[in-house]
């Protein structure tokens, strides 16, 4: 779709949930509706189908609420304040092994770093795809490579990351001894994590820009703004809700990923700086995030302290929950200023 054609799907789809009966004549329609609704008159197959939908729908609700409630209960049971403010440490009993302060910091650092890479890149690619898209061949290739990124398993990114960051040319980004590059650091993990957030950001930025009708662009051109100025001053502010949504979804993916963290962050539970340089040394060093902490503390991991795993999972789930709420708010705000209605 070119930039200036108005998008085909300014659908009225979201705003009217699904009242089947036409508006007006409430009493009559209610009567008619109930007659049509009484599934007693339907064929058996239809009734079975409906029953199936109900059973699965209600079952789904029960299962998911059970999962969330269970995690909440377990998390609240095992979460103590000192878990949040102490670093993990080696020890023989649960009381000696500390909390998960370092993994929490790790998660936050990871999100900030990965988004610092993914967000500008995603914004550029999304804007280019929606507003420029020439030469067409490059646009096609870009579309399919972004789609490829979206479908690539994160373990493949992690493997590629080890390949990339163990090369001597990128020795700066991690620890190295005697010319052998360790290849595991915050830098390495962030670079690869940004790849899993990138497709989400691109898709949302693009969708947001394409939902803006062409006449908005034309109005901006008419007052003498150039294309890039139009994009920066008019289109991107108008598309902000989708941009924010994309960024939030990306953050969600980054928070939740474990494979890349385990392979590329070194999975040392504590943050271990590579050198003594204050910030840089830390980022060149290894560490952990909440996800890898949960993984290590699950019965299949090395530490095996399920209670701490539950507590950390609870904190992680809270983060995801907050992000979901934030996405909801962003989407709702976007809907309020939808074009063409």
């Amino acid at each position: 779709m070119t930039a200036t054609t108005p998008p085909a799907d300014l659908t009225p789809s979201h705003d009217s949930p699904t009242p089947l009966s036409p508006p007006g004549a409430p009493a009559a329609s209610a009567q008619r509706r109930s007659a049509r609704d009484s599934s007693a008159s339907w064929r058996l197959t239809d009734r079975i189908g409906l029953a199936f939908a109900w059973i699965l729908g209600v079952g789904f609700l029960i299962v998911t609420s059970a999962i969330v409630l269970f995690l909440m209960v377990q998390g609240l049971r095992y979460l103590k304040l000192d878990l949040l403010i102490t670093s993990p440490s080696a020890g023989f009993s649960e009381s000696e092994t500390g909390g998960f302060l370092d993994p929490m910091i790790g998660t936050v650092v990871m999100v900030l770093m990965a988004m610092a890479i993914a967000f500008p890149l995603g914004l550029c690619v999304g804007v280019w795809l929606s507003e420029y898209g020439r030469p067409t061949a490059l646009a096609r290739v870009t579309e399919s490579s972004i789609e490829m990124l979206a479908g690539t398993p994160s373990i493949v990114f992690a493997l590629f990351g080890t390949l990339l960051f163990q090369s001597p040319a990128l020795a700066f980004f991690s620890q190295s001894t005697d010319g052998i590059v360790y290849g595991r650091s915050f830098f390495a993990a962030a670079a690869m994590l940004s790849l899993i957030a990138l497709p989400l950001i691109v898709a949302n930025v693009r969708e947001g820009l394409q939902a803006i009708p062409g006449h908005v662009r034309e109005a901006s051109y008419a007052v003498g703004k150039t294309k890039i100025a139009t994009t920066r001053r008019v289109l991107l502010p108008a598309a902000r809700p989708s941009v924010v949504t994309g960024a939030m979804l990306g953050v969600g993916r980054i928070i939740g990923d474990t494979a890349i963290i385990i392979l590329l962050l070194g999975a040392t539970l504590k943050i271990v700086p590579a050198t003594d340089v204050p910030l840089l040394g830390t980022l060149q060093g290894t560490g952990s995030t909440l996800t890898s902490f949960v993984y290590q503390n699950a019965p299949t991991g090395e530490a095996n302290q399920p209670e701490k795993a539950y507590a950390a999972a609870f904190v992680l789930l809270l983060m995801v929950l907050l992000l979901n709420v934030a996405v909801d708010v962003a989407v709702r705000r976007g809907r309020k200023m939808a074009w063409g209605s």
Partner: protein
Amino acid sequence: MDPLVQSSQATPRGLHSDRRAEFLLGAVVAGVVGFVLAMIAFVFLEGWPSFAHNGFAWFGSGGSIDRQTEAIFTSANLKQEPIYTFRAWPIIWGTILVTGLAVLLSFLSALFVSVFVVEFAPDWMRRILEPVIRLLASVPSVIMGLLGVLIVVPFIGQHVISDDMRRSVSFIVSLNGYSLLSGVLILTLMVAPLMTAVFVDGLRSVPRGWIEGSLGLGINRWRTFWKIGVRTARPALVAGTVLATARAMGEVIMLAMVCGGVGFSPNPADGLIFFLEPTKPIAAAILQSAEELTSPPMRDTIFAMASVLLFSSLVLSLAGWAAKQPMKRYGVRA
């Protein structure tokens, strides 16, 4: 240049910066594309020695994969020819089984749930269900893995697997709850919400008039929605399925935690015990041997596994695209 911009009285400087901006953006895009293509190429190249030494037998079966992995890993330490012999069928079969069963289960449930959400659920229920679906779709896989290891696996190990079953296969493999079944169940829980979310969006965008038309002809609500709504939303069904399959195939952590991590291919001939046997999908196998990347032949083998995974995800997105083509003319966009 856009004709509108050209005809306007843009200052030369403005035009200049405009062109520069386009060029810069294009350069960034080209960089990203180049990076992606380079990544794909490198993964395949790194894995090539393993394929080259084994030929098509790489994909076949034969011997114990765990023992082969060990031999490959240790062969780097000795002053001898590195060993490359690798028969990946158990992990490929594991991937196919886990992904296929989970996607099948979640397709069926997601279809009914999404129809329910869009058309039949009472308002209050819909208001709860939708955010819950989205939340469940975004729960990190390690949390699902934790739940699996602490709840599902012990449950299967203690209540589903009987001593008779254990004894009947004890000379081949030990059953302890880490199984295909637990992997499939939890994976279904993970991908079904994802699918449902896409399906719901697709069903929502079915033109209301079409549904109303069918209802006006006196066709009941279920049949109308099944025949018109679901059929119109087919591209969305394909898109959701492809997305979910990709996610299921690439699922690492949860499967590594729950499936047992034994390079064993569950045998359908075993009857129901089949579901209780442990397995190891490709992605989990990569994670579990990630420590062994230091050994060059092992590293090639691991990259070969990764390139199989990468190739399947490429084929998957192609297949999804191809499946959508004939449906595009009717139906909704997805």
